[in-house]
């Protein structure tokens, strides 16, 4: 970056330039980590539900979207803080209803059928949102009291709200971790993942546990949506956009593996945000082997900046993983 001008600069200017690049990389890493943590918040619920019930909940990202829209609706009435507490609870309620009255109804037809039903639900939810709030993004913003710079590097402010999102996501993992490892309910949940019949035979109410886990997973997604919706855009397409990313995370990490989900979330979050901040293009790489001019002539993808292709990078990571290690980073062999 900026390499062509470097010889003209005085040594301090070079140093300053290097510092700027370094700061940008720090920003990108921080952004990526926080985005990764958010991805994890959603994929953790998905993984938990899948591990336990074998259901791949296609509507999981829709719960994320509902969280954002509920919080937006509640905010004027209750204020931001109550809104981001209430909206995950509402989403959990919807999740419980879905599990109790829809998923349980089709359980006998197998997991593919459950996946399809949740797919249909995601369509219904997206359409209801469009009907109620319109097709375009709504004006859900970071509240004024949280909208300030946490610190600044090279004169660029870093928004406090990003750190706030990362903090909430981190707090959530610690909570999940403690819940799963330290509480009686957590032990039942973990064993129900492996041996549902056994747990049921021991007198635990497995359907209730399932319902609870489904609601909890939904609430996690809802909370992620309520918090992140204020920072990123809140529109009826957000479920699909995030949902696809979460699926990529799950394929890369391996379903049912929390560690895998975490690693893949961070990997994808960070590469994504590094790419966004980069001016690199394929033609640059080809220039190294003397094909630069040819690439410039061809144009198209070869001269498209990596930053504008950032959205496609996670998919390429997924393809790479599929070729090299089809069962995912930490997945068991099927």
């Amino acid at each position: 970056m900026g390499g062509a001008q470097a010889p003209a600069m005085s040594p301090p200017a070079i140093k300053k330039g290097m510092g700027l690049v370094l700061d940008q990389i720090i920003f990108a890493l921080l952004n990526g980590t926080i985005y990764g943590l958010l991805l994890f918040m959603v994929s953790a619920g998905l993984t938990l539900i899948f591990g336990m019930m074998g259901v791949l909940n296609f509507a999981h990202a829709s719960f994320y979207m509902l969280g954002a829209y509920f919080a937006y609706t509640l905010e004027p009435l209750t204020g931001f803080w109550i809104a981001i507490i209430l909206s995950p609870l509402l989403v959990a309620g919807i999740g419980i209803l879905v599990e109790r009255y829809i998923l349980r109804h089709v359980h006998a037809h197998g997991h593919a059928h459950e996946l399809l039903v949740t797919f249909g639900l995601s369509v219904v939810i997206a359409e209801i949102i469009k009907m109620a709030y319109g097709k375009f993004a709504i004006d859900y913003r970071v509240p004024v009291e949280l909208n300030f710079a946490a610190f600044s590097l090279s004169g660029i402010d870093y928004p406090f709200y990003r750190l706030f999102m990362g903090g909430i996501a981190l707090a959530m993992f610690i909570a999940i971790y403690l819940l799963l490892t330290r509480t009686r309910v957590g032990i039942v949940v973990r064993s129900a993942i492996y041996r549902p019949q056994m747990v049921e035979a021991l007198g635990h109410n497995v359907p209730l546990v399932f319902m609870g886990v489904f609601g909890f997973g939904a609430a996690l997604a809802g909370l992620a949506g309520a918090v992140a919706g204020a920072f990123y855009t809140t529109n009826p397409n957000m479920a699909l956009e995030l949902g696809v990313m979460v699926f990529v995370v799950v394929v890369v990490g391996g379903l049912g593996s929390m560690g895998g989900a975490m690693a893949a979330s961070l990997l994808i979050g960070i590469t994504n945000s590094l790419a966004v901040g980069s001016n690199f293009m394929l033609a640059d790489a080809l220039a190294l082997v003397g094909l630069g001019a040819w690439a410039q002539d061809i144009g198209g993808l070869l001269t498209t900046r990596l930053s504008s292709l950032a959205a496609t990078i996670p998919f390429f990571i997924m393809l790479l993983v599929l070729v090299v290690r089809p069962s995912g980073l930490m997945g068991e062999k099927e």
Partner: protein
Amino acid sequence: MKLGPISLAVVVCLLLAMPWLVSGSFLNAAIQMLIAALFAMAFGLLCGRAGMLSFGHAAYFGVGAFAAVHAMNAFGGEGLLPTPLLPLVGAGTGLVSGLVAGYFSTKRTGVYFAMITLALAELLHALAPHMKAMFGGEAGVSSFRMPAWGFSFGSITEVYFLTLAWTLLSIAALYLFSKTPLGSLALGLRENAHRLRFLGYNTHALGTLIFAVSAMFAGIAGALQSLNIEAANYVVLESHISTAVVLNSFIGGVRVFLGPAIGGAVMTFFGHVTSDLTRVWLLYQGIIFVLVMMFMPRGIVGEIVDRFSAPTRAGILRLLGDICLRLGAVAVAAIGAIFLIEFLQRLLSNEYRANVAAAGWPDITLFSMDWSPLSIQPWGFGLGLMAVGIALVVTINRRLAARKEAEA
């Protein structure tokens, strides 16, 4: 089973007579229905027969559509092939892209497969805007049909017959395919891929090949779409195309051979009919899908085939009676639900909200009557009908179950 060939002949005759039976705008809808039917059949091969659920079939439809447009524009507009053969280009590109995508996605099975297909389609959708030469950017690529073989292809009737010929040929080819060894192995893949491996088959290669065949027919459907509208835009790569084919095929029933085609055609027909009446057709489509999956897991055609599989005259009459009763009850609930949805849609629309700010809460006209949103009437009417309908369905189901038990 003697009914099969006769009804098939009747349907084909009706399709052939269509241009003389319906008006121009309807004929256009009929073309859309045929394309949707073929696309759903391609999806049905993969999903129903081989048990691999794809959420990203728009990709192969879209690739076929773009390939056809470029083929039409080739040689300064002369076209790569005569117009009637252009779908072959869609078939070829569909097949090749299906081989590539199939190689990756069939590396995994089950829900992973479904997620990968979705991700691949989204990848193409994300790349498309950056590949202007190929996908034409915002404006898309347009073209026009050249005359060939003594046809001008200027009239909609000729386009209709071209689409019909390709759709029928493709469906016949799919039928024959299902009878081949590879078609049988598709069933084996769905039923028990693990066992297939231990019988000495290469399941990854089999899966890839079946994926590619499915993508090939999706490509033909896409090419027909381009021929029809004489353009392609990267809207055809969007997720709602993939969504529609999943919904349509499963509403029809993917395990019955013509189930997806019927689902695709019927849902497209309703989409066309209701386009002036409602703005939320996709919502209805989603709700119908969820209800079908919950209460008729084999799909509507699947359910019908199942019920009429061993008919006796008395049995059929009684079955028809039961079905009419149920349909009646469902219709009551549906009218209530439709009323509520449409009322809410109007209440929440931007136009109405603007009115509220200016003039309070004006009445909403629906079902040729005026309803005040602040009164209890519209809500009571909608919810009441729904409740009555659901109560009727439950009662009828209980009665019929009791009768069945009494007979058994």
